[in-house]
């Protein structure tokens, strides 16, 4: 089951660049929340702050509070623990090319020393079913490598890999932007299915995508969050002029 995310006064830097400024935001549990905005507005940095991936870059810095459920992730936990609870799917599919499909999905669990084989088999199947890839790969689970799949399949494999560790939150950083329309719609269907079980935060360039999959939408601009509201409100009757300009295509 997913949990909510509470962000208070979040600031982030890349070197001297202040990429996120005073972000305050409550992301509801078991829903999809979309983050939209032009390139370089800080929305990717924002999701990378939620699983503490931002700080893996030596010049990056973060201040502020992020609570996932009851846990203050910057105060009470190490990055490794957070990332075991928060799954992430990246913009470009990044399966492990030297591993079979099976091992790709099981990698998160194996990494943490989980070795119950029968349970692993079940988890791999469940994760692949959840990511709508099972039917396409079930006969070649251990024969084919993760890299032999098509781009769209690779991305669903990455989603399965993230789901296998049973995360409470699933972060998706433009998960469909490198994919063709058919694969994109599969990923969107998937988000629709998954959001009852996980808290999903999806960064997207594609406003229709946000409108299709998300209950809530946040609009980012120049490192600030301009508006956060129900998706319906953002796309039909935004309260901020800049949001309106963006969604009507006047810039970005």
């Amino acid at each position, binding site marked *: 089951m997913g949990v909510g995310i509470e962000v208070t006064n979040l600031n982030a830097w890349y070197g001297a660049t202040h990429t996120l400024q005073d972000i305050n935001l409550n992301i509801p549990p078991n829903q999809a929340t979309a983050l939209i905005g032009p390139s370089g507005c800080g929305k990717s940095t924002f999701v990378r702050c939620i699983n503490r991936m931002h700080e893996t870059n030596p010049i990056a810095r973060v201040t502020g509070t992020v609570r996932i459920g009851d846990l203050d992730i910057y105060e009470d936990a190490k990055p490794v623990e957070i990332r075991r609870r928060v799954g992430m799917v990246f913009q470009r599919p*990044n399966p492990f090319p030297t591993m079979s499909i099976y091992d790709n999905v099981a990698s998160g669990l194996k*990494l943490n020393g989980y070795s119950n084989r029968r349970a692993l088999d079940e988890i791999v199947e469940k994760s692949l079913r959840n990511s709508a890839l099972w039917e396409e790969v079930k006969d070649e689970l251990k024969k084919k490598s993760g890299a032999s799949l098509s781009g769209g399949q690779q991305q669903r494999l990455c989603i399965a890999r993230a789901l296998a*560790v049973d995360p409470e939150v699933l972060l998706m950083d433009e998960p469909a932007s490198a994919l063709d329309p058919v694969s994109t719609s599969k990923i969107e269907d998937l988000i629709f299915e998954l959001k009852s079980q996980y808290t999903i935060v999806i960064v997207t360039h594609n406003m229709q995508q946000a409108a299709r999959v998300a209950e809530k939408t946040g609009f980012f601009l120049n490192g600030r969050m301009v508006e956060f509201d129900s998706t319906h409100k953002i796309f039909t009757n935004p309260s901020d002029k800049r949001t309106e300009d963006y969604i009507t295509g006047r810039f970005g």
Partner: protein
Amino acid sequence: MTETRIPKTQVEFQAGPESENGAGSEATAANVPPAISEVRRFLLSRGNSSLADGGFRWLMVICALSIFAIVVLIGTVLVRSSELTRAKFGFKFFFDQMWDPVNGNFGALPFIYGTLVTSLLALLIAVPLALGLAIFLTEMSPKFLRGPLAFITELLAAIPSIIYGLWAVFVLVPLMRDHVNPILIRFFGWTTLFSGDNLGLGFLTSGVILAVMILPIISSLTREVMTAVPHSQREAVLALGATRWEMIRVGVLRNARIGIVGSIILGLGRAFGETMAVTMVIGNTPEIHKSLLATGNTMASVIANEFSEAADDLHLSALIEIGLALFIVTIIINAIARLLVWAVTSGAPARVN
């Protein structure tokens, strides 16, 4: 492709001036000044440059082919000059351990054994060190250390072999004899790998000096293949909750493993051929001993040592046949290693972003 393209452009260039200017370009240029500019006339007068282009191309082809010629030439000379022993001993040459120039008996086994033992020892010592160094440099080193460390590593490769040899004779041999070997004999003597006279010379000392010499090549190539692993692979592992070591193991080493094996084999190739430093510390006795403290000889060293004093043709031929074997083995090893490294740095396997 290029062959068919070149004539086509030539035709276009020649057709240009004739159709516009008729026969005499000088006269027409005076009548109709704007039709052809000074610059255009100059460029047209240059012709199609096919002579310069073709000449350049052939020059480069010859340069490139000369590499093959050199390899073939060396091979031929080695094959022809070793005819005597090849005819007399055949393949037995490589399995016979008797090396007796005085009585005209030649077997290369002691040298093959020496080369294998010293090279494998060198790998055993150098590989963990080189991997550790490469991992530190690519994944963990602070920026200000990365440059100098990499530079010093590369510098090790530039030191002439003879300098290593001198250092080995004056520093490493006494060190091994007085400090390292006694400890090995005391604690591991029961394995019989460390027994017999402790001269400080021999297989182990040669292995150590070889290790220092092949360390830079293994570590710099390993670094190269590790750097070629896309950043997204590291992020994928980190996002699953991996520690830094797990990230390096799964995200980097696993993807670069073919190239790492390649760089190790390349190091092995260098160890095989390394001559001078080893000749100075191995003891130069054509014998096979189980003890690593014993003296021996390697294929490269015996050639260096005995070539100038080889009294008769058979002896000379035997040395050259050893050279031929070394030549073939190192070429094969290098080819395999380069292929493996290439597979990671520019081939497909690890290039999924």
